[in-house]
Structure formats: C-alpha cells, structure tokens
C-alpha cells in the first residue's frame, strides 16, 4: 500500500486505492458480523438459560400450593414428595427422557421424519450421555444450545410430574410416587411431545395438530395420568361418607396455597417463553423472527397479549360463581391452559373469552368428578386434564385453516377440529393408561398407598424427622430460651 493517496485531476482516488478501500470495508463488515453472530448466539443461550430459573419458580409455587393444601400433620411430607420428584426428574430426563423426545416423533419404530431432526439414529447421535453423543450432553465450547434446550425441557418434565403430585397428597407412598413421577415426567408426556410437539411429530404432519403452549401434551397428559392413579389410590380417609357424599378437607394454610398458585403463574411465563425458538442461529427456523416448536412464526408480543388476557379471563370467570381465592387462582391457571394451544394466534379478546369460559366451567367439572368418588385434593385432574383437552379442542373450533407447519399452500397440513380432537384423544390415552397401569402394579406390590394407621397418625410423624411448626400446639417442644 502506498503511504499516500493518489488523486487524479478530478479529485477521485485511483483504482488501486478504491480497491484497497473496498477490501478494508469488507474486512470491517466481516468483523462486525462475526461479532453480531457471537451476540446472537449469546442472546439465544441466555434466553433459554433464563427460562430455567423462571420455571423453577413453578416449583416454589407447587411447594407452597401443596403444603398449604395439606393438613398440618402431612405438611412436610407433601413438601418432601415435591422436592424429591423434582430431583428425580432431572437425571431420569437426562438418562432417557431427552432421547425419547428426539427418537419417536414419527412413532414406532423411530424412523427419521421429514424435517430431518428426529428418529432413533438422530437421537442416538445427540441425546445419550455416552459415546459420541456425550459431546452434546455436556460442556462443549462449540455447542451453546444443547444444554440450555435440555434444561428447558427438563423443567417441562419436572412441571409435568408436579402436576400429578397435588392430586395424590396425604396418602401416597414416597417411592411409589417417585416411580409414577418418573413414568409421567420422563416418558409419558415426552412421547406426547414427540408425537404432537415436534415438527416431525406424526400428529402434526398427518393431522395438523397444533398445541403451542402444551395444553394437551403437558397438562392433559398429567391431569389424566393423575386420574388413573387416583382410581387405584383411593380417597383420603374421611373424604367420602357412607352415602357417597363428599366432605371438604381443608388445607392448613389457604394463604400459602394462593400465593403458591400465583408463583406458578410467574413461572408459566418462563414455561411459555421456552416454547419459542429464537431466530438467527444455525438451528433456528428463521433468520429474522421467532418460531413455535413447529417452525411457524410467533412473537413474544403475541404471548404477552394473550397470556395476560388468559390469566385475567380465568380469574374473572372463576370468581363469578365461586368467590373462593383457591378457585380464582386455579381459574388463572385454567385460563392460561385453555388458551395455551393457540397463544400464538388467538386475538387477545378471544383468549380472554376462552379463558373466561374455562373459569366458569372449572368448579362444576371438579364437582362432577368428586361426585364420582374421585378425591382429587387440589383439582389437578380438572384444571389440567379437563381444561387441557378443552383448550386443545377450542383451537380446533376457532383456528381451523391455519397452517400447522411451514410450507407452500396445500403442502403444509392445516389445523382442523378433527385433528385437534384426535390429538386430544391421544393425549388422554397417553396420560390415563400409564397412570392407571403403573399405579395398579405398584398397588399390587404394596407400594402405592400408606397403611391406614400411618395415614391417620400423619405422614410427617411417620416419614419426616422434622416438625413443620414446632412451636404450635400443647405438645410443642420448649425452646432453649424458655
């Protein structure tokens, strides 16, 4: 390069200088795009990383909710059950749950799907904690996505298992419950997700099933799994009278339960955020806009509008006929769940109306189940199971005709009422059948329900070496200060 610039008589740089300027500009552009690529990768990794603690707030919520809904004598054992289920979800999802999601979208025998991101061979390559696959299942400087995706999905698994835990409080055995939680959280919902929450899922490619926010594959599966368990578990002692009428068994701390439910709402934002695929990465669907798990476009703005309206509609609907803060907050959950399948495409006022209707039907549905002798301590079967299916089908009513995948008109399947009904039926079976079968087997081995004497004495006394409220009651231990 010349140490000075040569201008011609017109004051324009000569050709060599112009070429040198262009080369310098291209180098500067490449450097900035490399920087932009790092920024985008860090944004994507951070986005999913942050959904993880937000989803752990769901578990803080479940702890408060279920401990508050338990009687004093069972409070800590309800907490232990929840904490242990969370703990077992993580390694079991690592050992095999993550693999199941990637292996079976097309069904058995796990052939690859049209988008090329599924099948047993693909799952073996990326989702096992041994062999060549292990490089994607641990720290890897060239892989800033696998761990945070795994983390988000593991939180989905933990949430799914926790949904069941509230229904079965105050009489289930700890290890039997953990086995059920593993079957639900690291297998049953994962199969539902592979089939209905994956661009290669056979329910999506064949029937246009659309369940953006997992109303069916998480909530309905978990709710009906709980129903299958409850049928074998039986009601709490004292719940039903000889004539079949039900007694209300109040929890010892309603304020704790209500606050817990509100924490679950906070965590829901993390859950739904993790349902979005950010743009601009090699694994993204689009360079310039976020996508659903199906590769259809979505915006966080859409989620903001619709989640908030759904929470509000659910609360308002359930307040109208119950006036009970427990049912109001359950209505908030029901509101989100009822709109979850279509949070990407509902108009906000429509999400409000759908959620309001869910809030209205919530308590009557729960009462209906109770009249059939099912003791669901927290209404989980109704809030998650019934309303989950309601939400899946509502989208079929309103969203029919929307493309379920990317593609040219006519190539991509579209959402339809029939497709959503088929999905709802499959989700019901994927929840209910394993819940019933596994709990039946556990019952045969004496691992499902605690003995009657222990239930009457209280599970804390029997199982937990600590006191929930050591300074209450006549027999409370005297503190050293006294």
């Amino acid at each position, binding site marked *: 390069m010349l140490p000075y610039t040569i201008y011609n008589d017109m004051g324009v740089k000569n050709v060599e200088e112009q070429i040198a300027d262009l080369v310098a500009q291209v180098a500067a552009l490449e450097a900035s795009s490399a920087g932009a690529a790092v920024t985008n990768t860090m944004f994507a990794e951070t986005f999913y990383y942050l959904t993880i603690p937000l989803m752990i707030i769901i578990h803080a919520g479940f702890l408060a909710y279920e401990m508050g809904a338990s009687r004093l004598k069972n409070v800590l054992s309800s907490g232990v059950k929840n904490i242990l289920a969370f703990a077992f979800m993580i390694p079991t999802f690592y050992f095999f749950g993550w693999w199941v999601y990637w292996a079976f979208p097309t069904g058995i025998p796990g052939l690859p799907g049209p988008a090329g991101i599924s099948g047993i061979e693909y799952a073996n390559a990326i989702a096992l904690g041994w062999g060549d696959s292990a490089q994607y299942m641990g720290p890897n400087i060239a892989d800033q996505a696998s761990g945070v995706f795994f983390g988000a999905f593991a939180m989905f698994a933990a949430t799914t298992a926790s949904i069941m835990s509230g229904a079965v409080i105050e009489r289930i055995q700890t290890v039997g419950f953990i086995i059920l939680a593993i079957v639900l959280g690291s297998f049953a919902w994962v199969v539902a997700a592979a089939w209905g929450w994956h661009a290669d899922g056979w329910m999506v490619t064949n029937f246009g099933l659309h369940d953006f926010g997992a109303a069916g594959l998480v909530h309905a599966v978990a709710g009906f799994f709980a129903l299958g368990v409850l049928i074998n578990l039986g009601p709490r002692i004292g719940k039903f009278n000889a004539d079949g009428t039900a007694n209300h068994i109040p929890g010892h701390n309603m304020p704790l339960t209500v606050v817990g439910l509100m924490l679950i709402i906070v965590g829901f934002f993390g859950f739904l955020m993790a349902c979005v695929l950010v743009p601009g990465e090699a694994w993204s669907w689009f360079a310039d806009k976020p996508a659903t798990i199906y590769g*259809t*476009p979505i915006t966080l703005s*859409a989620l903001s509008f619709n989640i908030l*309206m759904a929470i509000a*509609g659910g609360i*308002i609907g359930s*307040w*109208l006929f119950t*006036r009970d803060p427990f049912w109001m907050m359950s209505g908030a959950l029901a509101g989100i769940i009822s709109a979850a399948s*279509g949070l*990407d*495409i*509902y*108009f906000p*006022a*429509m999400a*409000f*109306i759908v959620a*309001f209707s869910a809030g209205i039907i919530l308590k009557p549905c729960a009462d209906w189940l109770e009249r059939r002798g099912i003791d669901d301590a927290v209404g989980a079967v109704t809030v998650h199971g019934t309303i989950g299916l309601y939400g899946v089908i509502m989208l079929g009513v*309103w*969203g*029919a*005709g*929307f*493309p379920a995948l*990317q*593609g*040219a*008109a*006519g*190539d*991509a399947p*579209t959402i339809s009422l029939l497709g959503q009904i088929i999905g709802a039926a499959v989700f019901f079976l994927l929840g209910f059948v394993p819940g019933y079968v596994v709990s039946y087997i556990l019952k045969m081995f004496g691992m499902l329900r605690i003995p009657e004497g222990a239930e009457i004495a209280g599970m804390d006394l029997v199982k937990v070496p600590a006191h929930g409220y050591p300074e209450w009651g006549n027999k409370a231990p005297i503190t050293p200060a006294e």
Partner: protein
Amino acid sequence: MFPYEEASWDVVDGPMYILANTSAPGWFTFIAVVICVVVLVIGQRSEAEKTKRFDK
C-alpha cells in the same frame, strides 16, 4: 379461518391472529368489555346482599 388467501405462512407479513382483517376482533373486544362490566355488576349486587346480613 386463516386471514390470508393462501394457507401458507410464507405470505404472512402482518396481523396473524384468528379472524384478522374481519370485524370479528372488534366484536370479541366488545364482548370482553361486556363480560367485565356484567361480572362487576353481579359481583356488586351479591356482595352488597352478603354484607347486609351482617349490618345492624
């Protein structure tokens, strides 16, 4: 119903919600407003009735 003539996300460049480009969103908004008002009216009447029982 998909709010574009072709059932493909490739043609979507704006509103992407159900019944976009129709009057339906306006009607849904109106219904939501009515729901809120009606719930408050019903709520006020029943709360007032409950408190009257304790009013001496």
